[in-house]
């Protein structure tokens, strides 16, 4: 519940609670957030590739960026209201297995003096001041002496920390008129109410805004004064904080996380020049492609715009028609902003701003021309993200280990404490931030054992990020023999690579118990065009071909899309695409080992397993992908088909754009159940569902629509299976640090927290399934919406941890249960690459890996 409705990437847009207003919308941010998949969180899950596309017009983003505007009361809506989601039948939500560990968390307790309520007043003006002159209303109330600095007023409703002795005040307007302000007490806001939490948030936002020297950017606060300049990458890092105050089972807590804003210091012009001179093609099309959708910030008025086009036949010398007459862009900037445009031959940028007339509600589009020289780039480009040096240098600052993070958190507390104004403000509201960060108890589950062929167990080494060493040397549970029944397509330039590949396969395959030989068919084509690859696949597949392998020279998306479309829809067959640069001698062995395992999984092989002591259970993972280009969203539905969790059934669904909710879940569930019976001769006794990608604001809808449609499908069975439905959230604010001696470390895999920072209204817990080498580990939040079973919370916690081990594309634990990650992969493939439903023939294979 702590992800502040931002959820992730594009998904976030739907997430803010009702009334989230412009702030909510803007927070989603243009570059697909950081939906990440476990051990190697790439921070770009779903949004990748597609350039920053956001439906939010720049003006709205602006509203969110307005540094000075303190959060209005109404704007925030009821973001802090927590509906009751805890299943009624669940009394105790805590588990007790595992070994107790001492943890710290990134929370401060907020103490409320004497649990004193706040007072809410309705304000009237006589003579009447119109309700929409909020500014005047505020100014007048501000003049009431006894309320100075100790009230919150949004223009209609006033809150103050004490009961007012008098309720009528006479103040003078500037012009000399007298106005009577009368207050009517409407209610006492008790410290346990949601409204109280909302007010405390506003108060802390005010403090951060005014008394801590921080600049507000969207919802978070940054300190550009302490910027870290990384000149060789033309970026600056602004340290900052993200915080929110919420009610948890331990009381009102201030959750605080360290954030860094990446600011780029190169102008659009220099980025364009760079594209031209680096030889990556100075063609206009390339520039256009790179820049379209990018968000830029102007040098002169601090506004952000989204680039919709680059106009190459205009230059700053050209004349634009303004209300006051024609003027050249150069002169306009000179006169209006005292800015000299140096490059007179640069093209111009076009931004289309959609506006709504506040009076008539009429929507209009306005074209805005911008001069690249005076616009700064924002955000990391894909090129930067894929540049190890950039990421390495950034990570040095952004990845803080638990010790460092704790110090940064304490600095926040000290800054508040050292500001007289902030202290006075808190004092007058009877609030106090506890001096030390919150301590709590966690539990650590036993490390799991990886089961290989014939159920041979191998213990996981919790200190390592992967169990590579186990899978590399031991036989997989069940191999699908490939032998020579594979087809390699590559360009004539890459024939050597194909030989390397075949030879290495034949070497590493048998070590894992997979039979693959070095004499598969290789077809070389003369170009690297997508069509030629498709043609080669079409004409060379025989009835024996088990898998198609395409060795491609680079990661061009169009070619990848075409190959996948062909192999998933037109001519359904498992396929493997591999970029040849990964076959260089140094890497070939480790890469091919993983590819062989991956191909085996795609063919229906079973790689490894863990011990799940339950029988007759079907695990289901659900996730959605929002495509930036099309107006449809894809839902991925993946269900396990055996007790070992090694076989899966999958299905995709389509829904209207930006909807997280999957409407056709009933059909999906029904089909999965039928398939389960086909394979097991019985329906499952338990159905355990993990749903990823749901923002706070959508929980209710998920519960009422998705959960209900799944239940309907289950009710159709002769005997309704036990149902557990859990929402999984990766992007959360909570961090845990384990005290070990006098050091702080990341809690190891299998750490569970189900106290203090959980909510009384939920059945929730946190699980750290993975271990990280750098920075602080992000736990995963589990929120159980249905628990119609005789299982105990303990069981669910263990199952969640176990399922994090069986994602076949990663020989280690991942951040979410494997079924969720499969569902994510599926939705991503279909949404981003196929744009159509894959062939049902593949439904029982992990072809989307």
């Amino acid at each position, binding site marked *: 519940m702590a992800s502040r409705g931002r959820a992730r990437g594009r998904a976030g847009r739907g997430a803010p609670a009702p009334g989230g207003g412009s702030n909510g919308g803007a927070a989603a941010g243009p570059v697909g957030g*950081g939906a990440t998949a476990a051990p190697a969180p790439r921070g770009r899950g779903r949004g990748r590739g597609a350039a920053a596309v956001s439906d939010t017009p720049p003006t709205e983003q602006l509203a969110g960026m307005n540094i000075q505007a303190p959060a209005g009361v109404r704007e925030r809506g009821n973001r802090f209201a927590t509906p009751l989601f805890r299943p009624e039948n669940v009394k105790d939500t805590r588990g007790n297995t595992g070994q107790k560990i001492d943890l710290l968390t990134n929370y401060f307790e907020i103490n409320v003096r004497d649990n004193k309520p706040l007072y809410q007043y309705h304000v009237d003006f006589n003579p009447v001041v119109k309700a929409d002159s909020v500014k005047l209303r505020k100014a007048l109330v501000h003049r009431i002496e006894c309320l100075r600095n100790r009230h919150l007023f949004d223009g209609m409703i006033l809150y103050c920390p004490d009961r007012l002795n008098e309720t009528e005040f006479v103040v003078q307007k500037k012009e000399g008129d007298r106005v009577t302000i009368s207050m009517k007490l409407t209610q006492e806001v008790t410290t346990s109410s949601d409204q109280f939490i909302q007010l405390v948030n506003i108060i802390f936002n005010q403090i951060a805004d005014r008394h801590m020297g921080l600049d507000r*950017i969207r919802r978070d606060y940054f300190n550009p004064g302490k910027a870290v300049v990384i000149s060789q990458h033309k970026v600056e890092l602004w340290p900052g904080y993200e915080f929110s105050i919420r009610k948890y089972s331990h009381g009102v807590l201030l959750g605080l996380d360290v954030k860094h804003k990446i600011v780029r210091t190169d102008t659009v012009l220099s980025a364009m020049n760079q594209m031209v001179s680096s030889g990556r093609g100075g063609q206009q099309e390339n520039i256009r492609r790179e820049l379209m959708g990018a968000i830029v910030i102007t*040098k002169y008025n601090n506004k952000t715009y989204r680039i919709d086009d680059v106009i190459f036949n205009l230059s700053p010398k050209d004349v634009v028609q303004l209300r*006051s007459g024609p003027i050249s862009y150069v002169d306009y900037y000179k006169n209006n*902003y005292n800015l000299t445009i140096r490059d007179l031959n640069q093209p111009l940028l076009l931004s289309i701003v959609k506006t709504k007339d506040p009076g008539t509600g009429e929507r209009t589009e306005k074209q805005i021309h911008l001069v690249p020289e005076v616009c700064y780039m924002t955000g990391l480009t894909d090129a930067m993200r894929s*540049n190890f040096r950039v990421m390495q240098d950034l990570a040095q600052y952004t990845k803080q280990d638990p010790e460092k993070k704790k110090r940064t958190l304490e600095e926040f507390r000290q800054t508040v404490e050292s500001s007289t104004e902030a202290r006075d403000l808190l004092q007058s509201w009877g609030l106090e931030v506890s001096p030390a960060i919150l301590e709590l108890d966690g539990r650590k589950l036993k490390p799991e054992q990886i089961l290989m062929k014939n159920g041979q167990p191998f213990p996981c080494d919790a200190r390592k990020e992967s169990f590579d060493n186990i899978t590399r040397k031991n036989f997989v549970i069940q191999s699908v023999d490939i032998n020579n029944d594979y087809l390699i397509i590559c360009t004539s330039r890459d024939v050597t690579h194909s030989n390397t590949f075949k030879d290495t396969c034949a070497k590493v395959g048998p070590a894992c118990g997979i039979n693959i030989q070095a004499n598969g068919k290789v077809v070389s084509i003369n170009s690297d065009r997508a069509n030629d690859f498709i043609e080669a696949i079409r004409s060379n597949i025989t009835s024996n071909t088990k898998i198609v392998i395409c060795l491609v020279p680079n990661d061009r998306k169009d070619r990848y899309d075409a190959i996948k479309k062909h192999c998933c829809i037109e001519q359904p067959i498992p396929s493997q695409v591999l*970029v040849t640069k990964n076959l260089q001698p140094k890497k070939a062995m480790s*890469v091919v080992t993983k590819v062989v395992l991956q191909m085996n999984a795609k063919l229906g092989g079973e790689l490894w397993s863990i011990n799940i002591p339950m029988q007759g259970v079907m695990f289901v993972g659900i996730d959605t992908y929002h495509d930036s280009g099309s107006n449809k969203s894809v839902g991925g539905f993946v269900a396990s088909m055996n007790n070992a969790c090694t076989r899966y059934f999958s299905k995709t669904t389509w829904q209207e754009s930006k909807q997280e909710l999957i409407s056709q879940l009933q059909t999906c569930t029904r089909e999965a159940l039928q398939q389960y019976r086909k394979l097991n001769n019985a329906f499952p006794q338990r159905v355990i569902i993990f749903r990823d990608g749901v923002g706070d604001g959508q929980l209710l809808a998920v519960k009422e629509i998705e959960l209900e449609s799944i239940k309907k499908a289950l009710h159709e069975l002769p005997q309704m299976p036990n149902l557990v439905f859990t929402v999984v959230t990766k992007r959360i604010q909570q961090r845990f640090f384990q005290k070990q001696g006098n050091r702080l470390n990341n809690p190891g895999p299998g750490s569970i927290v189900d106290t203090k920072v959980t909510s009384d209204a939920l059945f929730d817990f946190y699980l750290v399934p993975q271990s990280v080498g750098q920075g602080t580990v992000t736990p995963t939040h589990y929120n159980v919406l249905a628990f119609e079973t005789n299982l105990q919370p303990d069981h669910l916690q263990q199952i969640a941890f176990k399922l994090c081990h069986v994602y076949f594309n990663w020989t280690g634990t991942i951040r979410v249960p494997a079924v969720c990650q499969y569902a994510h992969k599926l939705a991503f493939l279909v949404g981003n690459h196929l744009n159509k439903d894959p062939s049902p023939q593949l439904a029982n294979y992990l072809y989307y890996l």
Partner: protein
Amino acid sequence: MIPVIRQDPRFADAEDEDEYQSRRSNPLIRDNRTCRLKEVESSDLVKFEPPLYIQRYARVVEHCKTGQYRTIADFGTAELTFVQYLKNLDFVNQIFAVDIDRNLLNSQKHRCRPQMFDHLNKRSEPLNISVLCGSVLEFDSRLHDLDCICAIELIEHLQKDDVEKFSAALFGRYQPKNVIITTPNKDFNVLFEFEPDQMRHWDHKFEWTREEFRTFCEGVTTKYDYKFDLFGVGDPPSEHQTVGPCSQGAVFTRQASKLGSSSLEKFPTEVYETLYSVDYPVEDKSLTPDYHLTNEIIYQCNQIGIAEYQEQGDEISVISIAHLQTFPSIDQYRVSDAHIAELARATEHLRVMEDGLSILVQNVPDSPPAPYWGFSDEENDGAGPSYNYHVGAEELW
């Protein structure tokens, strides 16, 4: 005349350009006579485009530019609107925004804090803006001997008796090198078709004709060692030339270039309360051109290298210095190839070929730590680059 910035103070709180424009064109607000708070500066007969207040600010800014004033005070700053103009002058080092209305200042003081782009586009000269609360009739030693004090549309808000005290404080004690005063021209009011005795704003204590203003200015120069030049803003329509400009002003220039050392004003008396003070981000001048050039070289080599790695899988790229010199961003430094080679040699990541003509850049980490390198769960299809350094919870735009 072009509006200097499209920031009408009346709608300065507008969220964005659109709200600003729509409110600005709203006849209910625009018709100043329906709104007593606003100053009358246009009528059916006379309309100024851009609005008069913008023209007025622009004129004063023009004077500040001509004089290259480094230390400026704005008396009667109100919503700090004029400060927004001043802070964009790159030679200004110090701005004092002074007003007597503490409430107003407290609610507006944050307007002068550096914006995002001020941090990105750092100034070459330092700038401090201080918001001070106090009466212009009092003396605060911090404002003594400034380059310029501006009193835009201030004097007519003073009680007539205080005008004399104001002159005494301003010219007698503050003794800035220059003073710019503007005030309405009463002669112009006939075009507004006012009632008898009606003034342009409810708080105006008086309005001066051109003659009265000149008398005031002459009075100043006889008493204090200043000379003055008159100017006007807002020309009347051609058929009403006789009424003069809508707003009148004067630039006073101190005659003595140095003040007598006996002046007791040097004794620090800080009577104004500082409500807000902020230093603007300044370029780090200690950084040499070589430092910037080195970063540019690393940046460009890195970009080229990564591009080649992605296209062809080259783990090491060789970039000729001659090619680098064709980049405008490097070419602008006008240095020799040998100098570039020298700078590249001194870096951690770049190597220079023996012949000194090319730079070597490595596109992959030396020894990839196992989990961070090679295939990951996300990229197993080779559909993307396979680095897994991640930036964590940073906010991406």
